[in-house]
């Protein structure tokens, strides 16, 4: 295992210490339980937007705490959902009196931990709504299973809901924005290499030099199929087809195209990927009016990409363009 770390069990704590040193203007870091909040929290009369999940997906979520996006983020151990006490304390810390939105990725652990936290918060008279993001078309949606995983749309929901909350919209309205993203966003990812969880010390899976995994999860969960490595253009087609056909998007739709690095894939390859994704979207008549390109929702040092397509309406475009000031996304301020 080749990583810039000290002891595996200290990675998350030391990361948070680094964030605390680096961004005192943006966030405060709370330890035991661990959470990151906006430096000016709680903001009176504003809905608090909170997300959280296992560490190892940076900048998500801690890198998106700040004006116009998240009020708080709860980082768990690497690839492990955080615990209810973290979410409860974060919820209390950002409670400005207008209620709290929990943006939850659809993983059993995240769901259960956030559910317990929401129950505890309600017990303390804090109004909480939860929206579960489940946008990964690599997994078949089904009532009889855990359903689809939550991936790329989560960050887009965090941006749009954060902007809506900043406008002092009500909890229901902010949650409605989140539900819109949940309904209008679809993602799919692939891996060229595995990643190595620090406390495990060896790759989560073996991927031979000539193979790739299509439909990978952000925790290294095996994908849909393993197959011989193909060209970027062919890979992008394999990711875009299930995304576009799942919703379905129709000609004339305005979309945000989000090309994400799993961590180890550098920007030069993301632009090669973006090029083809943009061309395919355009060929389908979709209008790519906004985009996001970079390592945003990562899987440690895994090489690979995911693509997210989000259908936008006028309000969503305005929310996307609204100022945001976080370590991971920033504009207009």
């Amino acid at each position, binding site marked *: 295992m080749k990583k810039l770390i000290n002891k595996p*069990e200290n990675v998350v704590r030391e990361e948070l210490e680094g964030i605390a040193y680096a961004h005192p203007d943006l966030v405060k870091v709370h330890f035991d*339980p661990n959470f990151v909040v906006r430096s000016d929290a709680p903001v009176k009369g504003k809905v608090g937007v909170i997300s959280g999940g*296992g560490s190892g997906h940076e900048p998500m979520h801690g890198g998106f705490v700040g004006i116009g996006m998240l009020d708080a983020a709860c980082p*768990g*151990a*690497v*690839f*492990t*959902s*955080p*615990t*209810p*006490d*973290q979410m409860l304390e974060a919820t209390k810390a950002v409670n400005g009196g207008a209620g709290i939105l929990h943006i939850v990725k659809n*993983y*059993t*652990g995240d769901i*259960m*931990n956030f*559910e*317990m936290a929401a129950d505890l918060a309600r017990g303390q008279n804090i109004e909480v709504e939860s929206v579960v993001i489940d946008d990964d078309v*690599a*997994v*078949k949606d089904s009532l*009889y*299973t*855990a359903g689809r*995983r939550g991936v790329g749309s989560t960050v887009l929901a965090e941006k749009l809901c954060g902007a809506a909350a900043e406008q002092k919209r009500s909890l229901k309205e902010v949650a409605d924005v989140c539900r819109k993203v949940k309904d209008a966003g679809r993602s799919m990812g692939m891996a060229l290499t595995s990643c190595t*969880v620090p*406390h*495990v010390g060896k790759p*989560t*899976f073996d991927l031979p030099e000539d193979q790739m995994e299509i439909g990978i*999860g952000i*925790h*290294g*969960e*095996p994908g849909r199929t393993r197959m011989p490595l193909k060209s970027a253009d062919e890979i992008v087609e394999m990711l875009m087809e299930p995304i576009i056909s799942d919703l379905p998007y129709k000609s004339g739709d305005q979309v945000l195209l989000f090309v994400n690095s799993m961590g180890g894939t550098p920007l030069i390859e993301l632009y090669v990927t973006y090029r083809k994704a943009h061309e395919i979207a355009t060929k389908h008549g979709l209008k790519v009016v906004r985009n996001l390109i970079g390592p945003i929702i990562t899987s440690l040092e895994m090489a690979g990409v995911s693509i997210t397509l989000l259908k936008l309406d006028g309000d969503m475009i305005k929310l996307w363009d609204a100022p945001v000031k976080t370590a991971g996304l920033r504009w207009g301020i």
Partner: protein
Amino acid sequence: MPIQRDDTLTWIKDCAKAVEEKSSYLTELDAAIGDADHGANMDRGFKAVLNKLPEAGDKDIGTIFKTVGMTLLSTVGGAGGPLYGTFFLQAGMKTTGKMELNLADWTEALEAALDGVVMRGKAQPGDKTMVDALIPAVNALKDALQANQPINKALQLSAEAAEKGMEATIPLVARKGRASYLGERSAGHQDPGATSSHLLLKTASLTWKDIS
């Protein structure tokens, strides 16, 4: 003589030891159909429990189990955290005020724990989860109780039932938890949560082997 308060402390400590020993094995099982953290999560949780246990001082068994539950809840994370947290919290509710447990008490506590896990995770038998180890274990306890078996014999039977339930998860296709993303590809692997559940119950039967 029934299970004493101090025996439950010993069980918890033995669980912590067993989880530490089996940590890599549990994580390996989780790597195959999950995300390679079940062992590390449980180990982190039970290490925290060892630190917390002194706080239960000379309190009753219910307090001990609730302390374990709260600690697991706030340190394990993932699916395992809320599930095992609920498991011990529910067992603690049923044993509030008790300084010793007979077989009926233990059976009732475990049944409440199982119900808590099902309520929280909504898994059905055959979904390839820890529930598949816990249900047969609770059923075995009930049978043993009815047959008037001594405690250690009942514990042995429940551990064996859990082991069978655990092994029976191998051919199953997961319908709950992270493994369900794999669909058919989840078949052929033993469920990590069923494995850790069996480990706790087997440890009980070993720790309390002289209690009859």
